């Protein structure tokens, strides 16, 4: 039972970072009905940009993080305008965008390999030291606490942006009903692009934040996307609160499973997958999703 504080701490920390990854994915899905396979690759690019600016060139972290966001926002806008928008217009089925998204994921993988190389990269720690409470019942590194707080702050910031800004309101209207939003005078094309850029920017932001803890390598993209899909499934696709809930739940499941089931080998994920299937059989739209996405 003395494991509980550590499990909770690990859960909060994992949950906060997962929630941020899921946010961008679910935003893009809500706006355009696109399952963005390239989300993980965007996260990786964000990490590499921060690595290059902060780690390799020694420019302050805040600037590097901002550059990650800007790079990804521009990249996202370009991808939406020149790739997704034309394909969505021309294709007979929504699902065709999945092929495009997967191809973009491959393309970004190739670009990452050529530009940033094959090695694992890491940057200097933001803050040193470890907080130890109660004779090692709770051990958590200080930079993790910092990143966790930054992640929570970003999530709060994002939600307030969606709630209170004009752009946020337009995006929410778009997500709710594309046709109605258009009738109400929302420039659908423009806001689709802004929304996609915003989703990509979130991926870049979380990549830039996490590179300080986990480092970055070109293989992290695909698995990150799949994990993000799982969180979105748990919480409900296309719903902001669902993405956050899904991320936090997955974070806690992992933290608890890895701590309590360690002696049985790697069955944590098998159990998570199986319980996810059972859960979805009972509640197909996830915790908070609209039925049938």
């Amino acid at each position, binding site marked *: 039972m003395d494991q509980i504080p*550590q*499990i909770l701490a690990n859960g909060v920390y994992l949950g906060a970072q997962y929630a941020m990854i899921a946010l961008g994915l679910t935003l893009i899905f809500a706006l355009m009905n696109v399952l963005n396979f390239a989300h993980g690759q965007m996260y990786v690019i964000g990490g590499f940009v921060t690595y290059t600016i902060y780690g390799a060139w020694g420019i302050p972290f805040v600037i590097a993080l901002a550059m990650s966001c800007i790079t990804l926002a521009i990249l996202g806008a370009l991808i939406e305008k020149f790739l997704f928008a034309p394909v969505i217009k021309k294709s007979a089925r929504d699902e065709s965008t999945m092929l495009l998204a997967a191809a973009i994921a491959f393309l970004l993988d190739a670009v990452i390999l050529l530009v940033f190389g094959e*090695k*694992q990269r890491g940057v*200097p720690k933001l803050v040193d030291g470890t907080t130890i409470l109660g004779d090692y019942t709770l051990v958590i590194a200080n930079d993790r606490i910092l990143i966790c707080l930054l992640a929570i702050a970003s999530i709060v910031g994002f939600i307030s942006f969606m709630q209170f800004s004009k752009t946020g309101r337009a995006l929410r209207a778009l997500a709710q009903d594309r046709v109605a939003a258009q009738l109400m005078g929302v420039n659908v094309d423009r806001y689709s692009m802004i929304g996609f850029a915003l989703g990509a920017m979130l991926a870049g932001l979380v990549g830039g934040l996490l590179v300080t803890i986990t480092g970055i390598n070109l*293989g992290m993209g695909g*698995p990150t996307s799949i994990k993000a899909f799982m969180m979105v499934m748990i919480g409900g696709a296309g719903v902001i609160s669902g993405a956050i809930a899904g991320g936090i739940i997955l974070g806690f499941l992992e933290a608890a499973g*890895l*701590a309590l089931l*360690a002696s049985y080998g790697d069955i944590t994920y098998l159990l998570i997958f199986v319980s996810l299937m059972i859960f979805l059989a009972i509640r197909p739209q996830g915790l908070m999703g609209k039925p049938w996405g």
Partner: protein
Amino acid sequence: MKRRTILKSTLSAAVLASVAAGAAWAENPVLKIGFVGVTSGPAAAWGISNQRSMETRAEWINETGGYKIGDTTYDIEIVSFDDQKDPKRAVAGMEKMAQEGIHYVVGPNVDDGAAAVRPVAESNGIMYFPYAFPKSLYQAPASNAVLGMVANYQSGPAIYKHLKEAEGVKTVAFIAANESDPLSQRDGGVAAAKALGLEVVSDSVTYQVDTTDFTPVLTPIMRAKPDLLVLSGVSPANAPQLIRSARELGFSGLISTETAQDAQVLREGAGDLANGFISVGGASTPEIASDMMNEFVERYTDMFGEYNDESNTKVYALEYILETLKANPAAIDDVEAYKVTMDTFEAPNPYMQGDAVLKYVGDSSFGQKRQVAVPLVVNVYQDGAFETMFIAEVD
């Protein structure tokens, strides 16, 4: 019609470009050596360090006039195939090598790929040099695979024994990724540790290959407070994260692995926390590297921008192939002749100071000489570079 025209011209342009890229200069006759391994995805670093070592060396040879085997001087061409760490693709790659008339192939990098290509290699007369450890690849009746590095069941016992005697290690814990190679290396390591009389306090903790944050994974092991934590078959990408998380969780014992690592990656990923980390490397630590090794590192860095310490081991396979062919030119398209030469082959080791030799070993592990003799150099990471801890030999 228009889109069809665009489609056609795009495709033909792509085909033309690829054909043009394939045509190379040709003054000397060309000797093709193959590489089948992983050069994309999470494990890309393994294969890329192989491929780049081979390309650096080939370029170097060609620049200095070619490589003389028998009466002919050859230019060396490296033909590489990305198997994406997929055994199906590895087989396709080996077929491709056979088609190109290649008899000597370096790779694959992982256990399942290496085992999957065996039927193709044997039926097409190809010798291949995997970086995979299963003994069945090298023991009779298999005979076409040559282990390109030191196996964990050879280096592990040496490291544990040294640490037991020199550092007083009594308890060991193992952690491995939930994947073929690391799991079998863990099982080998556990057996070796038990044979030495060490107490194994944890050997069941595994992590997903795509884990990015190891704190939750390591939490249960830290409770066992082992003297030594072994990262079985850890990939260079995961090693710094594991070390960092373990240290941040308050682990103060020793950490070791039996695979090759890269100092730069450790420095960036774990910084000072990686000090004291024990791994197995090739022969580039300043104490033993020859001038030729230093020049190799320089050329590699010039060509690709950054050196990878894993290449300290991976520089050897191509050298062994060429030296053995030089010793027996008949082997150039006859692997049976090559196998005969392997039993007696010996040549000076150009990458190491002193009188070290290149020769095939493996009698005690495999019952036949199916391993290249790479010096077993056990390194300790200290402040951004590796220092030699001790050097041993494999027989």
